């Protein structure tokens, strides 16, 4: 399978969108384009499984490499392992759902879908890159479209949020670039596979690991660099929120894993304590901060900080199970939070408010949206049967395997945050959906349209599938997590 198709298709579709004559054509093109992406992602998934079942044990499959800037040893080099395949499936599902819920965008429709698809090509490119420079290229490619999406189609204090997001993400990628240059300075290559086979010197790892980890951490809402998350998510239009929380924050987690931990295992060991501390703070702080929020989008945004803390916690624990759990949590959180933002967007477009106290009893008026809302909420608080439970459980199990007392303490603290999650989720659900109808204007609102229903069904299918059959995902991820762990163990010896 040709992986470059994952980049080429969205780019071509976005070009096609620019050539469309009216909004209707734009919508059809965007929908078709994202459907093709989803098809490609599933084709990749099955092709990958078939290869593995046929006994192909190469670490990366479907690799392709061609020189880009030969004097600097920069190659365009792509390939996937189980972790990337999982992330690509996530990306494709969220993009389709995002396009579906945004079909009603009226203002500058063409530009909106152009940017959305450009953004998705950046995410795909990032997940399949096996060359640090290419990877960085795609990481930065995804910054400016977000700025414009929030700035032009956002709501509330959108200019502030958009600028803050762009600058913080740019700062993160600046740090990443310093780290990448540091690796290049010593090893003379940007090739991830080559780098993973030859250990970098301890001094280099020691000095540059923080740059890479914090740089990617900014994308992944590492405490205290998470502050762009609440503002950015709450000001963004629905599809952009879904994309930001569902995919964009995963770029950070994936980068921390694939680049920082994988290529600098020695340093990952050394800085383990700090990573776990920061992750635990993010988990607790995020969940307590969520309790204080009254705006639905802020609730979900802060809870994302908390949930993404589990990703970093899993990576920091450096056990195979914990890393598998971290990747599962990325997929689970991506689907679940996209679903949540979709539900919030559907409500907001009808009630024109996101304040919890101004809504009530909406389940009777809009049963479908209400159900979606409940599913997203219950998944978020980790109800068994949904993806959140499977992922968080794996993270906790893996974390407990690390038998350092302080790390176990952090794990316990992280577990405890689930109680807080239950408090804020149930409170929000109860207020908005149950009880008497607060605002009589809300009696006239309509339930979800076909496009919104389809979007929700796609995401719910993902959430339930991961929740009911977690082994499907685990078997995909686990061997690749093992490859990363082998590198870590080699360094520890």
């Amino acid at each position, binding site marked *: 399978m040709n992986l470059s198709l994952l980049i080429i298709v969205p780019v071509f579709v976005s070009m096609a969108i620019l050539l469309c004559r009216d909004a209707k054509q734009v919508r059809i093109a965007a929908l078709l384009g994202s459907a093709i992406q989803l098809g490609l992602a599933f084709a990749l998934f099955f092709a990958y499984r078939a290869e593995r079942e046929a006994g192909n044990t190469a670490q990366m499959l479907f690799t392709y490499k061609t020189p880009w800037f030969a004097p600097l040893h920069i190659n365009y080099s792509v390939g996937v392992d189980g972790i990337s395949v999982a992330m690509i499936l996530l990306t494709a599902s969220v993009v389709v759902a995002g396009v579906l819920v945004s079909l009603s965008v009226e203002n500058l429709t063409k530009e909106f879908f152009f940017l959305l698809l450009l953004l998705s090509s950046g995410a795909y490119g990032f997940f399949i890159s096996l060359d640090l420079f290419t990877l960085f290229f795609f990481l930065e490619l995804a910054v400016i479209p977000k700025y414009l999406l929030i700035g032009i189609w956002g709501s509330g204090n959108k200019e502030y949020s958009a600028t803050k997001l*762009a600058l913080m993400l740019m700062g993160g990628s600046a740090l990443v670039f310093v780290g990448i240059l540091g690796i290049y300075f010593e090893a003379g290559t940007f090739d991830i596979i080559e780098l993973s086979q030859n250990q970098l010197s301890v001094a280099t790892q020691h000095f540059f690991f923080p740059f890479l980890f914090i740089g990617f951490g900014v994308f992944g809402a590492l405490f205290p660099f998470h502050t762009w998350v609440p503002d950015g998510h709450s000001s963004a239009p629905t599809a952009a929120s879904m994309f930001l929380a569902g995919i964009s924050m995963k770029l950070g987690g994936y980068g921390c894993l694939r680049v920082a931990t994988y290529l600098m295992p020695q340093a990952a060991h050394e800085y383990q304590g700090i990573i776990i501390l920061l992750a635990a703070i993010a988990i607790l702080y995020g969940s307590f901060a969520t309790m204080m929020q009254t705006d639905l989008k802020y609730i979900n945004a802060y809870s994302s900080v908390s949930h993404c803390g589990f990703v970093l916690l899993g990576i920091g624990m450096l056990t195979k199970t914990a890393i598998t759990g971290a990747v599962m949590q990325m997929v689970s959180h991506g689907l679940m939070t996209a679903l949540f933002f979709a539900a919030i967007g559907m409500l907001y477009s009808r009630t024109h408010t996101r304040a919890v106290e101004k809504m009530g009893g909406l389940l009777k008026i809009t049963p479908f949206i209400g159900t979606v809302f409940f599913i997203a909420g219950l998944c978020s608080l980790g109800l068994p049967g949904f993806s959140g439970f499977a992922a968080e459980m794996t993270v906790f199990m893996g974390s407990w395997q690390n038998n350092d007392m302080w790390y176990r303490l952090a794990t316990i603290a992280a577990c405890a945050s689930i109680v807080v999650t239950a408090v804020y989720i149930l409170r929000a659900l109860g207020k908005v959906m149950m009880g008497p109808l607060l605002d009589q204007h809300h009696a006239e609102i309509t339930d979800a349209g076909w496009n919104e229903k389809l979007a929700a069904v796609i995401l719910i299918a993902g959430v339930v599938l991961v929740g009911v059959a977690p082994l499907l995902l685990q078997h995909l991820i686990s061997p690749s997590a093992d490859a990363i762990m082998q590198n870590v163990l080699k360094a520890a010896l």
Partner: protein
Amino acid sequence: MDLSILISMKFEMALTLIIFILLFLKIDGRAGNQFFFRITNLLLVLSLGLYFLPARYGQFFSGMFRTSPLLEFEKVVLLMATIIISLSSYHWLKNFNHVAEFYMMILSSLLGMFFMMSSDNLLMFYLGLELSSIPVAALCNFDLDKKISSEAAMKMILSSAFSSAILLFGVSLIYGTTGSLDYYVLSRAVVGTPLQIMAFILIFSGFAFKLSVVPFHLWTADVYEGSPVAVTAFLSVVSKGAMAFVFITTLYWVFGNLGGTWYYMLAILAVVTMIIGNLFALRQSNLKRFFAFSSIAQVGYLLIGISGFVKASLSIGSVVYFVLIYVFSNLAAFGVISVISALTGKETIEDYKGLYRSNPTLALLMALALFSLAGIPPTAGFFGKLFLLTAGSSTGAWPLIIIASLNLIISLYYYLRIVRAMFIDESSEPLAKISLSFSEMAAFLLCAGGILSIGFMKGLFEVIFNISGGL
């Protein structure tokens, strides 16, 4: 005399020829504005083709003139930049009474730069430098009815003269210590005696003036603001580009022995230049001043690339590559400013509010240019800037690289200010719809094409890298 020398000097010959043709046409007195515009651009475009005329490389006139594949490439870049400036100034030139003079001046200046780049002798270098800077000072005054334009010209000529004097003082000290002005002799004779280092610092300051490196940048903003947009564009792109080319040759070759000395000077000045340029750009509201400071900041990045002397051909290659990209990105921005300024007289960021709704083409081009200047992929500026930093990191100067990377954030902020004005803000009195002329469209297409495609032309960087080995 061997006539093949003339072919080796093909660009210089072509420019001289064009200047003479213009002179005769002007004396004849019958040609109008349109005619001058068309004939000059046609001839300039034709002379671009000379790049493919095979010529003999090497030294001529006992070191007064030298060509190499790298020099030819640099000359083509600058010539192309001049053509883009000329094409995108159509609306300004159309109603201007001195089109022939404008072209004669700008081409003389370009000719001076070519000689300056090609010289292997400090004397010839100085001659070329003067030929390149005096016509520019006159050009600054070409908005004849504006007082601010004369002021700009006055500032330009005074600071030019001052910096030339400093440079000349350095040159004379060098001559005093070594007894020669020939680059080849100097590269061995300059060994770092105290007097030579002092001479070097004076020459370095002369360069810094022309490149507007902080703290020698004070003339920049005023001159940029007062001059006609075409001249500002010429100053900030062509003049700076030529200076950067000469600067890197001089440092690496003539003063190669002093690498340990100038490395720290470069590093410190790079940091100061980036920071001051960026901080001052934050608060500008006039676009020409804005781009003056942004171009100062860009020079800071250029200095980082130059400082990576450990891998010389990577450094030179990335500087040439950066200037090539800078030509397209900065000229795209100045092209938009030029058109809008010529038709409406508006030059502030405030005036650009809501530009995307009324003039989507101009707004998109401007946005592309800004993203390229800020180093955002997939525009070419991303590659240009990162390669400069990669070259700079070859000495292991991590504090320098970290400061430069953080400066990218500041610069993104102010570039986004304009993007925000054009795309997000709404205006009560937006600019009217502007219809572009053919020549402007051509220039803009060229710029947009360059910005979007240079990073993906696989072989281009390799070609530049390979010819950079031979200076």
